[in-house]
């Protein structure tokens, strides 16, 4: 019984990975000091990476990775049928992630480079929202455990999780960083959703936008800004395309 008078139950979670580096799942085991508390909030029903037990009665499915093969589509759809809440977990799941960089290459070329031309089954890296309905997205490459913890706590407490709507600059300035533009670099912080506590600029490397666009970003003004700072179109494409998170905005801006 809590102070609001309802029973809190651990959320039944399944964690599934598709094409990715599994770095996001790994974050679930981070923040060791609060890990036992965190584990008490969840009832792990299916999580191949850490447990041999597999049950199919999870309510919440964390989906990590993007989709790059037809068998993954089927697996994902089956998970969607079971899950009450399906969460896109990490940048690959939310936007396609670094895997999407291969989308710009002709398929045969990729196979040539990596598999000496032997045919391998693959398809363009696709974010999961293009295949199934996504109830909630937790972006980040990798996701921030802090945020994940907060969201899981919200679910247990039956309240609504949310993400910051403002860009990374806010958190960056709060950490008293020197702006990377002042250091002669181009940073995607002004258009990227905050929530990572500006780790990259705090480590003095430019944000590459792994958390995707902040709400209502001023993309034209940002493009103007990077043009003034003399970023070549190739570099810009490389930056904006790094996680595939600005693809949509980038394209609409061009047309």
């Amino acid at each position, binding site marked *: 019984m*809590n102070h609001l008078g309802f029973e809190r139950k651990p959320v039944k979670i399944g964690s599934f990975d598709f094409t990715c580096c599994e770095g996001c799942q790994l974050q679930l085991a981070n923040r060791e000091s609060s890990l036992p508390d965190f584990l008490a909030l969840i009832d792990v029903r299916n999580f191949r990476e850490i447990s041999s037990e597999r049950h199919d009665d999870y309510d919440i499915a964390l989906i990590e990775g993007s989709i790059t093969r037809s068998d993954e589509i089927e697996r994902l759809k089956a998970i969607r049928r079971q899950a009450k809440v399906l969460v896109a977990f990490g940048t690959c799941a939310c936007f396609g992630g670094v895997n999407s960089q291969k989308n710009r290459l002709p398929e045969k070329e990729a196979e040539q480079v990596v598999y000496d031309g032997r045919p391998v089954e693959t398809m363009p890296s696709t974010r999961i929202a293009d295949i199934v309905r996504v109830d909630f997205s937790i972006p980040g490459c990798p996701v921030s455990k802090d945020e994940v913890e907060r969201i899981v706590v919200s679910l247990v407490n039956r309240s609504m999780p949310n993400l910051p709507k403002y*860009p990374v600059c*806010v958190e960056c*300035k709060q950490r008293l960083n020197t*702006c990377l533009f002042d250091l002669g670099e181009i940073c995607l912080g002004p258009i990227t959703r905050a929530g990572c506590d500006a780790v990259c600029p705090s480590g003095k490397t430019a944000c590459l936008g792994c958390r995707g666009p902040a709400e*209502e970003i001023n993309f034209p003004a940002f493009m103007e*800004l990077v043009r003034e700072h003399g970023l070549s179109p190739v570099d810009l494409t490389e930056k904006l395309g790094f996680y595939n998170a600005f693809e949509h905005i980038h394209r609409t801006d061009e047309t």
Partner: protein
Amino acid sequence: MIYKVISKPEFRKFIDTLVKANTAFGPRQVDTDHHGEPVYQFMPVGSADDIAFDYTKTHSSAKHFFLPFREEISHFTFRDGDWEQQIRYEARPVVLIGLRPCDIRAVNILDDVMLHGPYPSPYYLARRKNTFIIGMDHLPLPDCFCKSMNRHTVSYGFNLFCSDIGDKFYLSINSSKAFGFLKEFETGDPTPEDDCLLIERRKLIKQSFRTDVEVTGLPCFLDIEFESPIWEKWGQRCLNCGTCAMVCPTCYCYSVEEHFDTDLKGSSRRNRLYSCNLVDFAEVAGGHNFRPKNSDRLKYRYYHHYRGFAANDNQQICVGCNRCGRACLTGINPKDVINDLRLERESCMTCVSPSRNRT
């Protein structure tokens, strides 16, 4: 106020002693930018040697020593279907060295807002009372416009203020603590020559301003210009990234967030510095946004700064440090925006017919 003079080496000794006996912050070089210019911030200092006494400007203001970017304002502990609320206004004593007159004026403005209204903030008070401020004057940088805002001098709100008069500092001592500490060091009463030097110094500072922003009557203009197309123009450039508000010494808007502890045994309520420039500042439940456009939000920040609100007697709260202007990536700065506004205004005043774009 008591006035003294102190030789520069002796002053350094004084600062060194103070810094070593307390948690202290002062200007420190943290980086060199791509033009080769040093970047300074108020950072922890361990001895006088850590302090860049000849610093030009810090990129961020000292505001966060009084209004931290994040702070817990209360904590709930849950037990047996009930809860308990704990509140603490604790603040450790802190020495702040090297604040400029405008920075101290900014703190005075925050005092007005946080302490002089109907609901004084105990959190702010705790920090304010536990901060020992040592101010230092400087020659204005080309883009400083605190004189336009009449915030280039300061007469209260600090413990000690130092004016550079050549070999010595001319000290304005405004607290018994500062006076007590200084007793242990070699200081002298100012001679008439020292006074002269001080007046010279003041004159020099006053004459050195290169940037002038005409703000007379601005509050009224801002009311009248609420619908001006100028805002649209500048709004189109604004990234709404909140940088200006974060570095500004007087932006104090905040939000309150509440989070459960992971063990669910408690929750903490936190203040978090926010900005009216951020997209969801005026959003309400259900998604309606009272300031939906970039221009609405940009305008609003200017409106607050140059019109002033009841919380501080409708005084302008900008002190003219131009931190926001320097930090803004797209080059939005008070001087250009205000001049633009006034230009537009003036041309309309001479117009016979009302300008277009206006209803």
